[in-house]
């Protein structure tokens, strides 16, 4: 794999761009692999990369039913943060943050991780107390966090609504300076290219239609490109975990729901941070191309359709203006939906499964993008050792039976309310 660098750009510019190589090979399946990862999204590709990079397991295939990065890794609003409250979440997401901080260099692919800082507005003293609790936990776990008062918020983001007509006046905010955004497609492509560099086969247009078994053990998969044997199989198809899980005979506490994302026309720099509205469902950042990228709440009913409803579009627009009135004249360019695995506690599931040889990585709800590197890292470890990596010990499937749920919002087991 030729390294990317300023020098390589220069050299190729002078040779008319004719000498670039494929970022990853157009691989066709071999008869069998040590590990098959189903799902060519961020998590699946990261898993394959860390299998090779951390564990030296290179006889690996990533099977993608369409094209890599076509699911949620390429549809999300790209926010990366590590501001989690509960023991089991806090450390995992901070580990992920640390991997993000070195990702471009580790992959030799610029994923444009931009630590522009994220703030969530608070609209009452009570809410700010709640944020302080969170910030205390973050600090006590070695994570940066700040609490801002109204004036500090105003200095940082003067374009928010500080007027008398604000329905929910801004009281303060919680701020994480190391939070930010990344270029989502680049994450998929960067992992794909790096994994490919280690010999991993990335096989596109290869849909898994069933599992091969020897007794209770999974020994491979049926695909649209034929049968492929595998020592172990990892499932990383968040959004469609139930569909593939059912083929393997897994019973899961997952529902699929749509979360919409929105982008505006490209503008000169306006929003320098990631800003989330604490009084309703809205968060926004500005991409490097200049579009404001934002989102809101789930559509609120089970869905596998990658599209959203107009009611939510309207609610998101209302919340957007409530937070930053100047967005009123900005025009929405495009909106789309992603299918989320929603779990009853809004925390993910990464673990070995009751079926031997099958490992599960799913249930990412609307928070999967920021977890991509840590998820891949820990899932690879889990697949190799057969035991959960310590950082994902809390993400077992069994927790719903035992009550060890990780419900950050306390919203309860109705997945669509999470």
């Amino acid at each position: 794999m030729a390294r990317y660098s300023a020098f390589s750009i220069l050299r190729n510019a002078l040779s008319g761009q004719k000498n670039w190589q494929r970022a990853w090979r157009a691989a066709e399946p071999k008869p069998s692999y040590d590990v098959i990862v189903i799902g060519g999204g961020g998590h699946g590709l990261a898993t394959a990369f860390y299998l090779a990079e951390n564990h030296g397991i290179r006889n690996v295939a990533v099977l993608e039913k369409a094209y890599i990065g076509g699911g949620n890794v390429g549809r999300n609003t790209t926010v990366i943060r590590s501001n989690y409250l509960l023991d089991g979440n806090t450390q995992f997401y901070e580990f992920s943050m640390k991997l993000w901080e070195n990702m471009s260099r580790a992959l030799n692919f610029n994923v444009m991780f931009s630590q522009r800082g994220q703030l969530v507005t608070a609209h009452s003293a009570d809410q700010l107390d709640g944020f302080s609790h969170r910030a205390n936990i973050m600090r006590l776990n070695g994570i940066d966090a700040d609490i801002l008062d109204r004036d500090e918020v105003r200095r940082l983001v003067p374009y928010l609504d500080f007027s008398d007509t604000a329905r929910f006046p801004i009281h303060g905010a919680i701020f994480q300076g190391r939070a930010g955004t990344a270029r989502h497609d680049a994450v998929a492509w960067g992992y794909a290219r790096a994994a490919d560099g280690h010999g991993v086969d990335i096989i596109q247009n290869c849909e898994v239609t069933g599992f091969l078994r020897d007794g209770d053990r999974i020994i491979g998969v049926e695909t649209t490109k034929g049968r492929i044997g595998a020592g172990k199989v990892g499932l990383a198809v968040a959004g469609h975990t139930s569909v593939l899980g059912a083929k393997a005979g897994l019973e899961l506490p997952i529902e699929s729901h749509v979360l919409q994302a929105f982008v505006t026309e490209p503008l000169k720099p306006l929003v320098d941070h990631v800003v989330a509205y604490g009084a309703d469902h809205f968060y926004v950042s500005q991409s490097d191309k200049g579009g404001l990228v934002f989102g809101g709440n789930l559509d609120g009913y089970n869905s596998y359709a990658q599209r959203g409803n107009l009611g939510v579009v309207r609610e998101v627009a209302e919340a957007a203006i409530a937070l930053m009135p100047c967005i009123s004249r900005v025009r929405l360019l495009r909106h789309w939906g992603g299918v989320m695995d929603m779990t009853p506690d809004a925390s993910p599931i990464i673990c070995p499964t009751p079926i031997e040889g099958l490992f599960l990585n799913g249930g990412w709800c609307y928070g999967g993008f920021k977890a991509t590197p840590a998820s891949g890292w820990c899932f690879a470890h889990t697949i190799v050792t057969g035991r959960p990596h310590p950082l994902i010990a809390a993400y077992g499937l069994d927790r719903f039976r035992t009550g060890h749920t990780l419900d950050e919002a306390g919203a309860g087991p109705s997945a669509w309310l999470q």
Partner: protein
Amino acid sequence: MLRIECPCCGLRDHDEFRYGGDASVTRPAHDDPDPEAWYRYVYVRANPAGLHREFWQHVIGCRQWLVVERDTRNHAIASVELARQLSARKSPARKPPA
């Protein structure tokens, strides 16, 4: 915007309704002592990519809970019924007092 044909109120935008999730799971009897039955009722979901039976309450209208059959791939609605009628069919109401 989904449009749901409420058997009482007619065709309405779905934001007049409150979603109640999977209606194919059976709630154990109130005094069912089997924790596994409750675990499955609360947590385990088939989550089909296809026809899904689900509860909706016309909360801003007649307040009736409905059972809607909807295709989760394209939101086509196949049927809408009053949940009370369905549950009464399953467990007939007690006889009126004499």
